[in-house]
């Protein structure tokens, strides 16, 4: 599984470090200034990209670091959206709604994780997909405060549309930065070491004295909290949610593809993956209105064949083989 891919990875070349930090700093400055100079359309695209950065980092925690392939992690996006939407419909302010989104998503992962994280490999992957699909039906059945099949309209903001969208952009940017920081921090903490040990060999990790169930459930709760945050902010952003759009399995699948493109278990991989896939698919959408899904599908297939460990990994491999051929002299 993913364990072998990690073992193959060579030690990082220290020369790249400052370059990476410089790139991150420049990227952040550009993203902070972006709303000043771009059209409403591209502001929307960039907000979506940052939303997917958060979701993909959430997925990175459970898939990339822990090795549990939660193919249907989008369920927490929907739970977050509905937690925020329902509490705001009940009169709570937006901040409380986002807090509810994070808390309810994490709580759901804690409760559901206990039985479901006992499953391994494919079984876990499809159990999460089933969870995602079942959630659509459950929300429809609950009705009441969730609005059921008719959908749920959130209270409109008193702000003008333009500053509101810019504010949501900055909120998503903050979410993207914080979630990336959480992943970076997690890799340094004992929990992160425990999770990576579980990914490489769960039995060995248990033998070393790691409470694997607890570690896995915690990891999923962190993952769910991030995904729930994105869902909560998204719900306020588009102001109208319905079961099939909030629990769209495509959200989780798209984040999974972004994670593969960027490289699993790395800190900046999900950021790169989200930017590449979302911007490419936006351009493809604009260029080929009818065949965009076909081209997107072909792109996914080609990436999986050419760069199964992510484009960063493929790029460094290519650079290394080029240097060993030309740079030796």
């Amino acid at each position, binding site marked *: 599984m993913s364990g072998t891919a990690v073992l193959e990875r060579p030690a990082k070349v220290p020369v790249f470090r400052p370059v990476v930090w410089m790139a991150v700093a420049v990227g952040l400055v550009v993203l902070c200034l972006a709303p000043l100079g771009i059209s409403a359309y591209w502001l929307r695209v960039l907000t979506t990209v940052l939303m997917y950065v958060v979701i993909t980092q959430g997925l990175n925690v459970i898939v990339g670091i822990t090795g549990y392939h939660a193919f249907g992690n989008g369920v927490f996006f929907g739970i977050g959206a509905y937690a925020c939407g329902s509490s705001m419909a009940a009169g709570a302010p937006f901040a409380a709604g986002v807090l509810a989104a994070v808390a309810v998503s994490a709580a759901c992962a804690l409760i559901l994780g206990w039985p479901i994280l006992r499953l391994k490999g494919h079984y876990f992957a499809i159990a999460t997909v089933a969870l995602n699909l079942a959630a659509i039906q459950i929300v429809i059945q609950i009705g009441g405060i969730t609005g059921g099949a008719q959908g749920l309209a959130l209270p409109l903001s008193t702000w003008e549309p333009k500053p509101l969208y810019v504010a949501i952009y900055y909120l998503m940017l903050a979410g993207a930065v914080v979630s990336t920081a959480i992943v970076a921090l997690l890799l340094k903490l004992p929990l992160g070491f425990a999770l990576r040990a579980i990914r490489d060999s769960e039995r060995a990790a248990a033998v070393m004295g790691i409470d694997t169930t607890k570690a896995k459930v915690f990891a999923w709760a962190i993952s769910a909290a991030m995904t729930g945050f994105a869902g909560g902010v998204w719900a306020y952003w588009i102001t109208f949610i319905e079961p099939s759009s909030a629990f769209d399995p495509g959200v989780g699948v798209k984040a999974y593809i972004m994670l593969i493109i960027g490289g699993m278990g790395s800190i900046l991989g999900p950021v790169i993956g989200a930017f590449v896939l979302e911007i490419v698919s936006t351009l493809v959408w604009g260029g080929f209105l009818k065949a965009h899904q076909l081209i997107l*599908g072909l792109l996914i297939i080609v990436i999986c064949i050419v760069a199964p460990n992510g484009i960063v990994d493929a790029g460094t491999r290519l650079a290394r083989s080029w240097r060993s051929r030309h740079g030796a002299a």
Partner: protein
Amino acid sequence: MLAQATVNGILLGGLYGLATVGFSMVWGVMGVINLAHTSFIMLGAYVTYFLFEKLGMDPIVSMPFAMAAMFVLGYGIQRFILNGVIRTSLLLSLVVTFGIDLVLTDATILAFTSDVRSVNASYASTSVAMFGTLVPLVRLLAAGMSLVLGVAFFVFLRRASLGQAILATALDREMSNLMGINPQKVFALTAGAGAALAGAAGSLSSMLFPVSPTMGVSFIAAVFVITVLGGIGSVEGCIVAGFLYGLVQAWAAYFLGTSYQEIVAFALFLAVLILRPQGLFGRAFFGEHA
């Protein structure tokens, strides 16, 4: 009414069982969850629709053509795309088949537009009286043909040497390789056979359901639930679980209302996954090398 619902559910379950056999075999033999499987069902239905519309061919007669076309497609995809991918990472196949599904669905929309079509055989409105219920002939035909094909595939696996090779590879890949079986060829053969059975299911369902590029979506839940219920890689389990699933769905609709059908299906699915992951009839070794 209950008897009518029961008979309808069981008959529909037969078709769902056939739609699942290929998916379950592919998962059991090589550990690949083929998300493009329902696209094969959809394309099989389109082959039948096309032959019916252009040549007036009966769906039962055109079924072998749909199966042959899907065999070639399934074999080719496995041989040229998936065999390379599963060598790097099994779970990557989930993403690749998702991409293949996007391509096949969108290509169908481009070729045939997203209009909903239908195949109306001359006997489409004929019904047969059975056990005090009225059974539409097409449903009876679909369930009967499904059962025949399922049993035929079961016998093929147990009796033919190619079938034996598939089973041996599912049991122990390394050992079967030592016995002179080429796993790459067996994988392609299994994928082809699985796609052919899906094509047959598509052919039969074109008589029952409207044909459209997104018709495969309605099979996804059934395919997953039946696979897990029957035990991954078990043909006989699939057939029995298919009937069981149809029955449960019909009863859920009858007793609780149609809106509960899906919830009951997913509840059943999660319960079986957690309590008895090898399925109701399966043995634990199939699909374990995931």
